[in-house]
């Protein structure tokens, strides 16, 4: 029997698992998909918000401000890309100035450091490419950018390094509350646990409904994005938002930690929880809206589009609590924006205050807990001398697989063999980026298939792009694959 079963291995579930490992607990993460970080965590704006806009007293406000302050340490420990580049909220009309002032006041009340309203000349200094129609902006120096799936993958890895278990392709289909435990029926067998943490993102209401009549619903709200080539990485230096107006919330233009530019999202309520397609209308909307921030956005430099679904809670705020109906069942639900920014704080709160609070004396501190993941070696960016040294020790770092992003075989093999390692083409891409560059895997795809097959000891035909049924190859040619 497990002490805690966590349903969902997104950034919330994996973060909670990692924080629980600071105690001597038996923890399992149950993930219905083929990889961790496969839902909302893999498709969002990748922003660490400063935290000035949620209402005072809300969970969002509290966890965002706390979470933001934790990012630096968490990302250092987990070797995750994080850059505190600051954010701007642009006002394009004097009429919008009061909105900036409201945000500033709210932010000050919430304890967001360093906020100020700046004028056009300072905006130009910080962002020479933004539209000259911007008259003022809210500057938030603590905002940042992060690799969202990187964070979740590293949380999962660190949790596993410290003894947590992860079961992929495991869908929870029923939950039974017994006297002192829960029995979870899953697609890979039953799991028993004293506590259940429901971190199932878009499906949190469905999961909760398995043990109670859920007091909340989660509605999917889609956002579509453009990702631009790193050749235009100097387009903006900070996260650039548009001031919310009567016309809506606007879209953001921001660098990513990998040197691309992200543009989006729109917001559209969709019918089902798997509509992660992009649409001509959605993309056109983003394109049009973004022009307000930068008139000549180089959309011809697009390398990919994607969409993600926000888990929009009917309550309007994050739900982070033990169910009052079912004791021992902890809902961590409706974690939409600023969910990523809040993740480190939510993880600590759920683990330490809620779970350890319930388990009481059963939860002893784990003196062996190691907060750090093993360093990920990245060939690109090393000095010439370091490159030479690395190759001498490990020649697989001399074989470049992805030429767009200069990713070596050594990095890919390591990404496969780590805890919570890559099993799929996209899994490899999210861990060390082959295929994330401008050729989008055209050259390296066949090589990555070959490496995955070799390292996992499976046939190339069993290598999946992403989910369980997303095979890339359908058979051999008449001539056959041979050796």
């Amino acid at each position, binding site marked *: 029997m497990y002490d805690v079963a966590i349903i969902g291995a997104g950034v919330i579930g994996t973060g909670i698992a990692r924080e629980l490992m600071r105690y001597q607990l038996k923890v399992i993460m149950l993930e219905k998909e083929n990889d961790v970080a496969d839902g909302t965590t893999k498709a969002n704006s990748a922003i660490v918000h400063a935290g000035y806009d949620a209402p005072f007293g809300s969970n969002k406000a509290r966890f965002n401000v706390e979470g933001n302050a934790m990012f630096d340490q968490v990302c250092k420990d987990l070797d995750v890309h994080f850059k505190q580049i600051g954010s701007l909220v642009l006002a394009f009309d004097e009429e919008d100035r009061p909105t900036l002032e409201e945000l500033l006041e709210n932010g000050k009340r919430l304890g967001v450091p360093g906020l100020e309203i700046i004028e056009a000349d300072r905006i130009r200094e910080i962002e020479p490419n933004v539209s000259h129609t911007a008259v003022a902006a809210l500057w938030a120096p603590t905002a940042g950018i992060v690799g969202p799936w990187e964070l979740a993958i590293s949380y999962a890895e660190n949790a596993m390094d410290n003894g947590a278990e992860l079961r992929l392709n495991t869908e929870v289909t029923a939950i039974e509350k017994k006297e002192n435990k829960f029995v979870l029926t899953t697609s890979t067998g039953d799991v028993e646990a004293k506590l259940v943490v429901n971190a199932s993102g878009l499906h949190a209401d469905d999961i909760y409904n398995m043990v109670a009549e859920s007091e909340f619903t989660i509605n999917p709200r889609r956002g579509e994005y453009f990702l631009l080539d790193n050749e235009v990485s100097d387009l903006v230096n900070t996260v650039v938002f548009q001031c919310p107006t009567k016309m809506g919330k606007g879209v953001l233009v921001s660098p990513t930690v990998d040197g691309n530019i992200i543009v989006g999202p729109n917001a559209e309520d969709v019918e089902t929880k798997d509509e992660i397609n992009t649409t001509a209308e959605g993309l056109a909307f983003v394109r049009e809206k973004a022009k307000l921030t930068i008139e000549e956005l180089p959309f011809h430099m697009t390398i990919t589009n994607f969409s993600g679904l926000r888990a929009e809670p009917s309550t309007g705020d994050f739900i982070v609590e033990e169910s009052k109906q079912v004791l021992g069942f902890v809902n961590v639900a409706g974690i939409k924006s600023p969910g990523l920014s809040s993740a480190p704080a939510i993880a600590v709160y759920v683990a330490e205050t809620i779970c350890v609070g319930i388990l009481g004396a059963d939860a002893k501190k784990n003196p062996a807990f190691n907060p750090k993941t093993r360093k990920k070696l990245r060939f690109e960016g090393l000095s010439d001398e370091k490159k030479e040294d690395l190759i001498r020790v490990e020649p697989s770092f001399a074989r470049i697989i992805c*030429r767009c992003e200069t990713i070596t075989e050594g990095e890919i093999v390591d990404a496969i063999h780590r805890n919570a390692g890559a099993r799929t083409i996209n899994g490899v891409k999210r861990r060390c980026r082959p295929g994330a560059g401008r050729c989008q*895997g055209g050259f390296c795809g066949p090589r990555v298939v070959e490496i995955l097959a070799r390292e996992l000891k499976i046939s190339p035909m069993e290598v999946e792009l992403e989910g369980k049924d997303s095979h890339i190859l*359908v058979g051999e040619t008449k001539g056959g694959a041979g050796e």
Partner: protein
Amino acid sequence: MKAYDLIVVGGGPAGLAAAVEARKDGVEDILVLERDRELGGILQQCIHNGFGLHVFKEELTGPEYAERFIDELKELGIEYRLDTMVLDINDERIIHAISKAEGFVTLEAKAIILAMGCRERTRGALAIPGYRPAGIFTAGTAQRYLNMEGYMVGKKVLILGSGDIGLIMARRMTLEGAKVLGCVELMPFSGGLTRNIVQCLNDYDIPLMLSHTVTDIQGKDRVQGVTVMKVDENRQPISGTEIQFDVDTLLLSVGLIPENELSKGAGVQLDMRTRGAIVNESMETSVPGIFACGNVLHVHDLVDWVTDESRRAGKFAAKFIKESEIIEETSIETVPGQGIGYIVPQRVRPSQVNQVLELFMRVRDIYVGQTIVVRVDGKEVQAKRRGHMAPGEMERVKVPVSLFDGPGVKKITIDVEDR
């Protein structure tokens, strides 16, 4: 640091021809760097025939065409390295490269020939809406899986774009037992060679749908369907024209882009039109001693022209190495006028042209019975009528040096005119 007279970056058809030519012109110390596990480049996966009609006056497959040059390279004793990736090049012609065999190496060359080829445009670059399942391949990647690795990539296939690789793959997939339901082209004309339309589509009853595009991709895991719509003259989809294709695979043949990341790092100036280097008549880039040829310079239709161009690069690189002098001469600019997409070379030094200047260019549209007019500083010097011209086929125009070699000449302009 090891020093060479000439380093050729890329061991495909361009790099091979350039290296061989330079050796024949007396350059002893040559090194070819190839990132793949064998020489020959993309030719090795082009197992169809149709190569070599101009250069060898016979029809060869891609690997056969490559083999002729590989054999010659080996006979001439030219040094080459496989599985070797060039990481960067600088304007002092210092190269960093890595390989499993030799690790991280620094090399120096008196001259460098850039011959890295091109890459394919992707779905992302087109912003095709829909899901992002498995089963979407660029045609060249699919070709590699089939012809090099021995795997099939799908059973029911639609092809977007009528570039040559897409056309070739329509036939190849059909011969392997797949059903190819159609080839969809945004433009009102094909981007491929006429002979490929006939031999790869028509002969297999695969419809070519001009002025159509893919507007949606369905399927969460693997492609389950693709929606195609007719487009208007502004290339915008016309509502109500949706056609649904029940396919598991979408191949993209929507253009090739010269791969010039290394060139940029070396400070080589690029032409926005070709997305390759700006070169002069000697195939020399804006950085003295760095030359470029083949698909890294501009995307060719036939490998035969790559060979011609690369021999020229090899020859002039040899000359540069031997004479090691920088010729101070004002260049004449070549200007693509009406109906012309681009011209290579972009600069010409008349003193370096041996009697006749050969210009490579692409037209922007289908032209029947129109005239290519050459003007020197606005004055017409040559006009030749052409039966049929298409963007998918490269045009070559020969201009005798006597027509433009004069004091103060600034521009050679080429237009397509209806006369």
